[in-house]
Structure formats: structure tokens, C-alpha cells
């Protein structure tokens, strides 16, 4: 049953990524150059709606949460490496799969690069990555744990803050600067 749910979620997610143009590496590059913020605002809207919904639903029925551990050094280094790849290629691990679905040739090369990257990672995991990821490991912590506040309250406030930022930010700040 989980496989069917996962397939359906993937179908919806793939269609949404395609429609919002997040599978376009040119669009991603414009977002990272801060000329157009539509994908960043799309992501912030998704997070705002999602966090409010899951924590409200959690009051009624238990959710299948899976909090990732906060090993500060590894998560930050991984994010920085990811960001360079995101900036160079214009693809995420998921958006390049959507890109292949809509027929993008360069997305195939992104997947090939990703598979080679996964092999390189597997070969270096025990020597380099595992020791680094033991540094500053705080385990599976949430913002609610850090703030010592009820998760549902933190979720609603965070969601409203994200929606506020989305509403205030211009979608095309680069358009004015260009003329």
C-alpha cells in the first residue's frame, strides 16, 4: 500500500514541478540569481500550508513523521555542496527526473552525474563522511524542541511567517532592475 501512496504522491509532485517550471534549469538559475522568485515562493507556500496542515491533523490522528537528525557540520557542509551543484546544473535530484519525463536531454546528464555522485559517496562514506557527521550531532530535534513550545503553535506561527514573506516579496525583482 505504501508503494501505491508513494507512486501517487510522485505523480502529483511531478506534475506540480512541471507546471510551476521548477524542472527548467533556466528558471532555477533565475531564481538563484534573484531575478525571479516564483520557485522560491512556491516552495515557501508549500512548506507553510504543509506544516500547518500536518500539525493540525496530528491533533486528531498520529502522523508518519520522520525527523532527520541535526548533525550540524555534516548538514551544513552537505547543503553548501548541494548549493554549488544546484547553481551549476540548475537541477535538484527530483526536478531532473521530471525534466526527463518532459523530454529534456540535459536532465539525463544530471541523473548520470547523480548516479556517479552516489557511487563516489558510497565509496568514501566510511572514511570521510561518517566521522564528519559525528560532529555536533544533536539528534532528531525540531524547532518546537528548541523553543520549548507546543509544536502546533510553532507550526501555525512559522506557516503564517512564511506566507507573510511570500506576500511581501516581489516575484520578479530583477524585472525592474533590468530596464
Amino acid at each position, binding site marked *: 500500500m505504501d508503494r501505491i501512496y508513494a507512486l501517487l504522491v510522485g505523480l502529483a509532485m511531478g506534475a506540480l514541478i512541471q507546471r510551476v517550471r521548477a524542472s527548467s534549469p533556466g528558471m532555477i538559475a533565475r531564481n538563484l540569481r534573484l531575478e525571479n522568485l516564483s520557485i522560491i515562493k*512556491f516552495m515557501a*507556500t508549500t512548506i507553510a500550508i504543509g506544516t500547518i496542515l500536518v500539525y493540525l491533523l496530528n491533533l486528531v490522528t498520529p502522523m508518519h513523521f520522520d525527523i532527520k537528525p541535526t548533525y550540524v557540520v555534516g548538514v551544513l557542509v552537505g547543503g553548501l555542496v548541494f548549493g554549488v551543484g544546484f*547553481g551549476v546544473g540548475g537541477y535538484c535530484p527530483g526536478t531532473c527526473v521530471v525534466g526527463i519525463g*518532459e523530454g529534456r536531454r540535459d536532465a539525463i*546528464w544530471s541523473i548520470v552525474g547523480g548516479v556517479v555522485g552516489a557511487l563516489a559517496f558510497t565509496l568514501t562514506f566510511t572514511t570521510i563522511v561518517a566521522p564528519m557527521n559525528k560532529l555536533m550531532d544533536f539528534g532528531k530535534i525540531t524547532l518546537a524542541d528548541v523553543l520549548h513550545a507546543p509544536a502546533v503553535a510553532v507550526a501555525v506561527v512559522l506557516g503564517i511567517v512564511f506566507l507573510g514573506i511570500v506576500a511581501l516579496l516581489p516575484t520578479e525583482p530583477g524585472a525592474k532592475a533590468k530596464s
Partner: protein
Amino acid sequence: MTSPVAHAPPMAATAGKGIPSWARLGVIFGVVSAASIALWAPIGVSGTYPRFIGAILRRVTPEYAAANPYLVKMGSLLKPETFLVIGLLIGGFLASRMNREASPETEMVHAGEKTVSARYRDAFLGGFLIIFGARIAGGCTSGHIISGITQLSVSGLIFAAGVFASGIFTAKMLNAGGR
């Protein structure tokens, strides 16, 4: 002055009057992401890459695959996450074809990409780095940023800060000479 490098198809940043399409799609994605946590688990894509490598290594060199702690930890390719990735591929295909879109032309993303082979090179390099970085951090745009922050996980916020810091820097630097 228009940028000489951006050849993306003109995109509907706003769906006519009223609600911009990124906002509408973001709300739908928020509901899908919450439904995923309610029914199955948080979405995540990048783990499928090392599971794919694991499936190959188990055929080619079973002794090594069984002795590698990372491949053992990541488990089989038959996990539901793999079906999510298959969904992304089909979802991207269906969304583009149902809207009567042809396969997009390969976009030149940065000023330095003068040829299609330069674009393939950048897509490959980007693909390598996003997966290597995502695996250090334990998740990517979907697992850490979308569903991570949705669950209020601190690691998701740290990962997102790293991604956007180096992603914005990289994208701006790569285009700096081309204007």
C-alpha cells in the same frame, strides 16, 4: 536589456488575473505533502540514487555490497521512495503532454554555456554535486527543505540556509562575466 543566455519558454508567472500560478500550485503541493505524511511518510528523492548504486553493486560485487555499511543502511531499491521517483517521471511526462507541450529545447543556463555540450557538462557536474551534498546532509530539496521544514526539523532549516547561500553565490558568479 534582455539576457542572452536565458532561452526558457515564456512562462505563465501569473495565471491571468487573480492568484499567481506558483501560489495555487504551492497550496496544492502543501496539501499533497501533508497527505503524504498523513498516509505514508515525508517525501524524499535523493536516497534512491545510492539505492540504485546498491542494486548494481549487489549484482556486480555482492561481497563488497554486503560489507559496505552505507549500502546496508540504505536497503533495497524496492522501497516506496523508488516508486515516488517513478511517479515523478510519469507525472512530468503527463503534465507536459496533457498541456500539449513539446519536449523543451535544451536551455543555456549560464553565460559560460556557449554550446550544448557545455550545458551537458554543467548538468553532469551539478548532478554529481547535488547527490554528493544531499547524501552528506541526509536529504535534498524534498526531504530536507520541503518535508523537513514542514515537520519543523532543525536540520531542514540548516540545510536550506547552506543551499541558498552557496546556490545564490554560484549562480551569480557563473553569470557575472556574461552581461
